[in-house]
């Protein structure tokens, strides 16, 4: 090698000049440039690309990434009480180890045989999720909980031929914003009306009188979340289902599946469609990049034939007694029918469905019960501690899971001021609700999960007491 010879890029096997020469010779072209003959010259961008300096060695790249990441303050070194759609739970080490297996992390699409193991893991995701929610048909994940609501709402509209969804007024603002896009602006042909149903001021649960007043023969689906965005457990699921069904509407429940060891499966109280997050089942928060969503229903054709998701079905092979797993109802997707397909389908968060499957298998029935009871214990203990501070009260003092609304209005401080002071002590206070829910005054949504120890809770209380006493 001479000093001036081009250096082959470690990720490009054919960047050896001799190989390029061989291939050019084999095809009878004089230069690589000639191969771009289809692109007219006046389309070409001839200026130099002004990109940052190349980090051509792995050691430089690694140092750069690590140093940049070091500018973050994370929820492992700090004590965080943020939830609101992205939650910090314990991620079992087996989940991380299985996730990083290159075989499926780098898998592309494959076939039922060549990527058999991944397809089986996907089926196990759907099977276990089906047990948690009490449903027989579960699609592969969609992008997020909000996207699951959106797709399922459109399913409900197609099934019922109606164009209205009733949602709780206390729905997560991010999810509502996503839903608004799925429901299309009023100018569009597919527009679906979103009607908000009020809440009981004492409990935070759905106001059933308001539901009865707003539901009509126009209503395609009634949507309720439990636990709700503000952590409230809805205990009138059956009554809500009955009200919806009496008007010929469907009933859709949104759930956080980590609660389903202690909370009733939505099928038990009459849900027709279940949606929710997948992030809490073994996924790191990843700065919000950990979110994923699912859709589940009974296995009835009127539902199954409206799914936009990829669906993995078990089946048999040409070998005696052997299972394999393939795509079911693929043709109804946009891959099969383009604009005539059900909404659209594409890459989503399918790798994380594998992680979710591992998580559910590790927990089993008792693990879900244990983690659910632990979350209940810790979040209620924390709520009690905070409510004991002067001027601090709970908006909805009972019947919540994992999250609860802490009202600081009477302290004379804003949530922003309190959180700034807490941050200086290495604590990330609850999500500020004052902009999205102004009628709650200076309130914050605190999230306490199984990872929070009694010491953590005591530390939060002490820090808040000090901040509020200043």
């Amino acid at each position, binding site marked *: 090698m001479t000093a001036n010879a081009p250096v082959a890029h470690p*990720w*490009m*096997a054919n960047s050896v000049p001799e190989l*390029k020469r061989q291939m050019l010779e084999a*095809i009878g072209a004089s230069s*690589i440039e000639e191969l771009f003959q*289809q*692109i007219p010259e006046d389309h070409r961008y001839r200026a130099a690309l002004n990109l*940052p300096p*190349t980090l051509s060695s792995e050691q430089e*790249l690694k140092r750069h*990434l690590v140093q940049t990441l070091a500018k*973050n303050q*994370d929820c*492992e070194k*700090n004590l965080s009480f*943020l939830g609101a*759609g992205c939650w910090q739970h314990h991620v079992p080490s087996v989940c991380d180890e299985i996730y990083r297996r*290159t075989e*499926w*992390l780098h*898998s*592309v699409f*494959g076939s039922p045989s*060549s*990527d058999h193991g*991944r397809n089986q893991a996907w089926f196990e995701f759907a*099977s276990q999720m089906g*047990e948690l929610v009490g449903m*027989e048909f*579960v699609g592969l994940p969609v*992008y997020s909980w*909000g996207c699951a609501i959106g797709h399922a709402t459109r399913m409900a509209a197609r099934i019922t031929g109606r164009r209205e969804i009733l949602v709780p007024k206390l729905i*997560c603002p991010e999810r509502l914003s996503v839903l608004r896009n799925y429901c299309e602006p009023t*100018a569009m042909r*597919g527009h679906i009306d979103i009607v908000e149903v009020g809440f009981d001021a004492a409990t935070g649960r759905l106001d059933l009188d308001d539901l009865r007043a707003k539901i009509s023969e126009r209503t395609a689906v009634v949507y309720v979340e439990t636990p709700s965005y503000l952590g409230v457990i809805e*205990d009138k699921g*059956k009554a809500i289902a009955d009200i919806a069904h009496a008007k010929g509407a469907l009933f859709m429940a949104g759930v956080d599946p980590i609660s389903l*060891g*202690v909370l009733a499966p939505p099928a038990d109280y009459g849900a027709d469609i279940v949606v929710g997050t997948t992030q809490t089942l073994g996924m*790191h928060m990843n700065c*919000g*990049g950990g979110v994923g969503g699912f859709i589940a229903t009974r*296995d009835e054709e009127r539902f199954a034939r409206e799914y936009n998701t990829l669906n993995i079905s078990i089946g048999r092979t040409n070998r005696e007694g052997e299972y*394999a797993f393939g795509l*079911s*109802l693929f043709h109804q997707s*946009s891959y099969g029918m383009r604009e005539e397909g059900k909404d*659209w389908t594409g*890459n*989503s968060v*399918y*790798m994380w469905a594998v992680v979710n499957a591992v998580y*559910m*298998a*590790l927990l*089993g029935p008792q693990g*879900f019960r244990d983690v659910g009871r632990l979350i*209940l214990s810790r979040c209620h203990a924390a709520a009690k501690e905070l409510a004991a501070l002067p001027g601090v009260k709970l908006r909805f003092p009972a019947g919540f899971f994992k999250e609860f609304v802490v009202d600081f209005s009477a302290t004379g401080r804003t949530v922003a001021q309190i959180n700034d002071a807490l941050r200086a002590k290495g604590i*990330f206070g609850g999500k500020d609700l004052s902009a999205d829910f102004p009628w709650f005054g200076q309130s914050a949504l605190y999230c306490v999960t199984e990872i929070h120890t009694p010491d953590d809770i005591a530390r939060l209380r002490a820090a808040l007491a000090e901040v509020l006493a200043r």
Partner: protein
Amino acid sequence: MNTPAILKRRPTYQAPRWNEPVIMEMGVPGRRGILFPGADADADALVPAAARRAAPPALPELSEPEVFRHYLKLSQMTLGMTGISLFGTCTMKYHTPAAEQAALRPEMTELHPCQHESTLQGALEILHNFDLILRELSGMDQFVFQAGGGADAAYTNVCVTRGYFAARGELEQRNEIITSIQSHPCSPATAAAGGFKVITLTLDEKGYPSLEQLKAALSNRTAALMINNPDDMGIYNPEIKEWVRLVHEAGALCFYDHANFNGVMGKIRARELGFDSCMFMLHKTFGAPKGGGGPAVGAYGVREHLIPFLPGPIVAKENGAYTLKTGAQTVGKVREFWGNVPQVMKAYAWARAMGAEGIREASDISVLANNYMDMRLKRIDGVEMSNPHINAWRMEMTRWGLGPLKEQTGVSTFDVQNRMTDFGIDAYWTSHEPWVAPEPFTPEAGEMYGKEDLDAWIDVLAQICDEARENPDFVKSAPHNGAVGKLDVSTMDDPAKWATTWRAFQRKWGGK
């Protein structure tokens, strides 16, 4: 330089056959896979009685090593890219563990998007700096990473299109989106899901739709053109600048689906071609792992006039610090939070490690390698190239067909695809719908695999074509070396048989 004999060996493969049960069949009551610290004794009473779970979920009960080993075995029965994967339309890349390891650090995994901006400066810096890289590669003025995939970025474009025309009072009038039959299905599908009427242009003998067809489709009802270029057949539309001019003249917007960016990276830019917006797939083109279908990112970029409508937040740099901003006329969210941030970091790592020269060279190599494959594939009896009359070098991939082989032998492209996996070759991509070439297959060489691997792929295909003529049933009953045999797909769409969950399988099949 001669290829050493050892590298000319035909790959052989035998997948692990663990005969692993479905996890729902495994376990023993009472086994535990994980323990948590103890809860308070009265925890159950904290749930309102009517909302309590009555019966435990019928999940498997396994020890931790049993779960671990089960999923290790399943991972081993996944071929993925371990062999040779020339999966067209996905521009598969090498994904460095260096980026993956960084993404698994707590400074990434344990970040919450609602943390105060001052605590997220590293993550915001990466998003912003990668935004700048994509701006340079495309000429766009702002990128956002919220979309959870390429199709979701197309959907984002539909939402932004609605917002743009709503602000101009033209949304009710402009209710049509134009695309082509060779665009990815997500373009027409997201346009329709967004409430637009879809007009699909067909190809003429040059391999792309004629200008006349476009002109006939354009009107004051047109909201947007959503198009890829080159298409999946390796044909570049040389009239695209005139297309964009005509669409703009009609008052509509132009979206560039850059799924097929590999062949033109550093060679053309969406801005100079006149486009208003474009999208890149970070989990494919930019070296983040595909994971069998995500976590994915559709990076969506726009020119200045569309920035106010973008879903928020977008990252800005002000006074040396990074901050999150949302435009006054934002269309709202397409997905919660800011996107798959670790994947954006991996794409950033890829771009930094490749650099400007590496990115240009990757497109050089991709196009060279594809034309090298074309030269060799042309010599195989039973295969035919799409648009054979077009005498031009193709871009980074070419649509091929096994129509002649099917006629000769009855062996289909799916049979050949299955048989190729017997050699440890990832199942190739056939074609998006509709199939304009009979029995299609779409190899894409990319820049990662060496010439030996490309030759091996072609040698295997040639051998399978010979096998099909000698013993078609052998090919039709493939795979023979896979983790499992050939799936009977007849039950997949049969309502009495399909089962996406174990409980449905129990009911429909009686567990057999």
